[in-house]
């Protein structure tokens, strides 16, 4: 399970026994933004050849710690040590020269450049005044092969899927002779297979003697990968311990003070057999082929599948956000043909929470209230916006969704990820839909906010709303949904419920091990 570090590297359990100093250390690091201390006297050692997971809720100080360690941020107090010596803090270039590489949660690729141009950005091999294209192509291909992705070198980055971009980003980092690799939630956008591939890369890098710092909200990954776990809470170090001594439940308890299974509210089956939505043979060109399913009142219906299986496109087609090529939709047995999103909100009484809150959910430069009211703004007036009514409605929503706001005029990109997601949630539920489609509702947010969101989704169902949850996190689907629809390469391949809803069962359909013949069924 855990990688075997090579002989030169100290082992995870007894790092100091080999006598080598830690590769990278935080020494009494403290960071304050104005009057607020977000990191306080944190001491952590990261050793070569070790995979060290850092976990904690949003606001616990993980990102701040990583930004200080990689030289992006200057600490208020404390030191950063590399190879047993203190180094200048807040100097990104110096840290990069030492081989400390941070892979951001938000990708940092130049969208209009090609994959190969991105791989060598800033360190292009040259021959005289010209770029050495041949060398770039050759080494680029090697690096991509090393991370096991089959994207073409000439592809422009903006034409890649999110998961492919992530793999390019990782390839870029390892191509630069890293000594310390800091990964901030790297699997958030990856499919299971890609994630598995990434784990192998991480383990191989660790075996080569790279110190790995791994930030994740997914505890099963931490368990699967890490030798050592550091838990942060409220800017302070809670503990650093060998991974083998901590169970996922234990880690959650240390992070938030409650257990994993308590994240999900109890399942209450729908009380009526009423079908509110019946979809027959819906196709979206290039993405969805003849999808049929039905949704009951009070039901939470999960949609599982790999990224690119067509789940998002199916519902974008349903909501009029994307053109459909054929198929029929019945709302309470009445035929509905989607034309545009506002039509779907009015006549289908449905709303869609998009998967990417920065690209589709929020205008990041707008304040929270303006974002909240943007969907269904008409309810605040046909011509003029009744700003007083809008303000009151938002204050109510902020209370209902426990959105923490310091200054109502600040743009939403100044809020934490969890708070941003709550604003999107408030925005979508603000149009009072009876069918709610949640696309990756908890991506990139902390455990505490996740639990809140699960509770709200369950409450919607209890109140007789019909919910769809599209998610790549199987635990989420299993813990929350009554039934799950599995999609694979544009088709619905299975509908599972009860005992059949388990991780292995879903994955077998999602990857095509099972159910190849089911695709042929209507």
């Amino acid at each position, binding site marked *: 399970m855990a990688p075997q570090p090579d002989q030169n590297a100290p082992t995870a359990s007894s790092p100091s026994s080999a006598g080598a100093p830690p590769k990278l250390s935080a020494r009494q690091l403290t960071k304050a933004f104005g009057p607020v201390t977000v990191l306080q006297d944190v001491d952590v050692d990261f050793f070569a050849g070790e995979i060290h997971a850092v976990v904690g809720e*949003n606001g616990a100080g993980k990102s*701040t710690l990583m930004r200080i360690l990689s030289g992006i941020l200057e600490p208020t107090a404390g030191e950063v040590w590399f190879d047993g010596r203190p180094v200048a803090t807040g100097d990104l270039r110096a840290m990069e020269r030492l081989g400390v590489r941070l892979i951001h949660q938000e990708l940092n690729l130049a969208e209009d450049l090609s994959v190969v141009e991105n791989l060598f950005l800033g360190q292009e091999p040259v021959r005289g005044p010209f770029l050495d294209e041949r060398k770039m192509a050759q080494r680029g291909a090697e690096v991509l092969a090393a991370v096991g992705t089959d994207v073409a070198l000439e592809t422009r980055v903006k034409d890649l899927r999110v998961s492919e971009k992530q793999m390019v980003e990782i390839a870029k980092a390892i191509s630069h002779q890293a000594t310390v690799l800091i990964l901030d939630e790297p699997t958030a956008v990856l499919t299971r297979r890609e994630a598995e591939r990434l784990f192998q890369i991480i383990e191989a890098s660790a075996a080569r003697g790279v110190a790995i710092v791994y930030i994740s909200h997914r505890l099963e990954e931490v368990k699967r990968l890490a030798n050592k776990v550091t838990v942060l809470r409220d800017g302070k170090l809670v503990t650093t311990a060998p991974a083998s001594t901590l169970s996922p439940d234990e880690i959650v308890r240390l992070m938030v003070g409650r257990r994993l299974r308590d994240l999900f509210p109890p399942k209450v089956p729908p009380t009526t057999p009423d079908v509110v939505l019946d979809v027959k043979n819906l196709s979206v060109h290039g993405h969805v082929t003849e999808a049929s399913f039905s949704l009951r009142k009070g039901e939470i219906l999960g949609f599982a599948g790999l990224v690119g299986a067509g789940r998002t496109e199916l519902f974008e087609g349903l909501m009029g956000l994307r053109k459909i090529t054929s198929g029929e939709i019945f709302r309470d047995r009445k035929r509905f043909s989607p034309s545009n999103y506002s039509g779907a909100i009015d006549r289908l009484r449905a709303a869609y929470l998009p998967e990417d809150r*920065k690209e589709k959910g929020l*205008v990041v430069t707008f304040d929270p209230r303006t974002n909240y009211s943007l969907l269904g703004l008409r309810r605040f007036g046909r011509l003029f916006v009744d700003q007083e009514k809008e303000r009151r409605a938002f204050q109510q929503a902020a209370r209902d969704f426990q959105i923490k706001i310091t200054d109502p005029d600040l743009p939403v990109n100044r809020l934490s990820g969890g708070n941003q997601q709550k604003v999107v949630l408030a925005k979508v539920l603000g149009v009072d839909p009876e069918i709610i489609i949640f696309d990756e509702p908890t991506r990139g947010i902390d455990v505490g906010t996740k639990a809140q969101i699960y509770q709200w989704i369950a409450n919607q169902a209890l109140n007789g709303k019909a919910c769809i949850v599209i998610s790549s996190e199987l635990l989420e689907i299993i813990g929350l949904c009554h039934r799950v629809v599995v999609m694979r390469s544009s088709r619905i391949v299975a509908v599972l419920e009860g005992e059949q809803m388990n991780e292995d069962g879903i994955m077998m359909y999602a990857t095509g091990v099972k159910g190849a013949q089911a695709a042929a069924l209507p």
Partner: protein
Amino acid sequence: MSAEKRREGGEEVAGDARDLATTLDTSTQTEKQQTFKALAKWLRNSGPLLALVFLVILGAILSDTFLTVGNITNVVTRSAFIGIISVGATFVIVTGQIDLSVGAMAAFIASLMIMMINQLAALGWNLSSAIFLGMLAGVVVGVVSGLVNGLLATVGRIDSFIVTLGTMGIFRALVTFLSNGGTLVLDTKVREAYRPVFYDSWFNVPIPVWVLAIVVAIGAITLTRTRFGRYCRAVGSNAEVAHYSAIRVNQIRVVAFVVQGFCVALATCLYVPRLGSASFSTGLGWELEAITAVVVGGTALRGGTGRVGGSIVGALILSLIGNLLNLQNLISVYLNGAVQGVIILAAALLQRSSKSR
């Protein structure tokens, strides 16, 4: 682009900290701090207005004739054309587009109006009805021109810069064609009847200034208080998010161009009686003056935010500079363009520093 992304990411971290600050901060924040914050915000938002005040004071010092009612009225009246056009330009720019065709469009509308009014007058129509019909036709042509620009930029999926670069050439060539390479002139009788629209006053305020004030008021209220104004900002900030917020992005963009076309037509209705003619050089460079006014007024060229009031202040600043250079002897009048260029760059620098703390 990617640098911007990075900065947003950085701000989110600080956001985490600020969330934590919520509870601490609200209790300790004194009234004094809040007043200071409000003052800083006011200063940042009123930069263009302060520059205008500074120019007026400078003018009063440099020239005795500057601060006379006659001179000020004159300056404001002459900035009415660019002012009205820049209101429309604010909408186009806020939605993340640009319109380069406004100057040529004004010349085209002026040509058609002059030909039509002359024709109707020659047919023996009552002069006021002929002029009224001519103005109405001008407005229709302006709206249709804006519609064409908008449809090409949305349904045609051509970048608005390219679309309006193309229509600019077409409008300009049509003017030369209609005037046979020369100048179209209003008949003397018609001109006498039309003159008052530009030269008369109500309550000592020239008609163009009234029109400007009304257009600015309606424009400002539309951008800040209406659903359409809100949608314009959303579309300009992030069209994808607007799409997922059930906003018909293309429709909003087209309407912004139509508003621009309407404003150009309105400005042209005031311009025709001033000179009573139209030629190849009519409205030359107006598109750049309008865009300059909008940018100097604090609207971001990348879209998403904008202030109609700022654009007018920008237009006033530009014409004040021209006026001031005429009234004094220190700097040559021929450097007018250079001084305006410096003002644009200064405005851009100030906006940058207020954003990047």
